[in-house]
């Protein structure tokens, strides 16, 4: 079992561009959550997907959007990138809302220049 995988591992973009990050959940998991972790901070909840729909959303602007596919994999899209979007983006998968079985991926490091 590969666990939660994320791609790419690193990404460099310039302000105003758009980016798509990808996540494949652990086998058997149906729920995917996305977090943003700025340097020196704890992860902040962006949103969660279940049954291909956004179930909950944190305090992030509409520039952040996502999608979940029938195979439970997910994408995070960020439009009109700002310097402040530079962070480690973490994907976590779980079965339903069982947080004690929530597995995190290694993250995608996004740098916006």
């Amino acid at each position, binding site marked *: 079992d590969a666990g939660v995988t994320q791609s790419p591992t690193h990404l460099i973009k310039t302000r105003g561009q758009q980016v798509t990050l990808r996540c494949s959940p652990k086998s058997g998991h149906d729920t995917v959550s996305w977090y943003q972790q700025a340097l020196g*901070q704890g992860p902040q909840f962006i949103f969660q997907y279940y049954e291909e729909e956004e179930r*909950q959303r944190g305090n992030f602007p509409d520039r952040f959007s996502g999608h979940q596919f029938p195979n439970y994999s997910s994408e995070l899209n960020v439009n009109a990138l700002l310097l402040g979007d530079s962070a480690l983006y973490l994907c976590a998968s779980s079965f339903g809302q069982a947080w004690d079985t*929530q597995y995190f991926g290694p993250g995608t490091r996004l740098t916006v220049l």
Partner: protein
Amino acid sequence: SQELEQSPQSLIVQEGKNLTINCTSSKTLYGLYWYKQKYGEGLIFLMMLQKGGEEKSHEKITAKLDEKKQQSSLHITASQPSHAGIYLCGADDWDRGGGADGLTFGKGTHLIIQP
């Protein structure tokens, strides 16, 4: 919204010594989670606490939730180099739509083990 404050922010401990990390919530904790993160990597789940006064142990790491369910501590006995990393506490945020969706995290405690 719920806020979690961790202390200390960073900790340097000599190998073999014991240490304690604290996590304090502004609201009652319905579920408190401890994670470990190696620099720039994903989070590894350590333990979950739900009941006031609950205590759980895994190898040399013990976590407790106080009776009032507003503070948790993580204690490491006889620290080893493998314990180095960032320790994060996370909590269910029931303010968000009334459901426990997503976790609110503290800023983390950076633990360095000196040989």
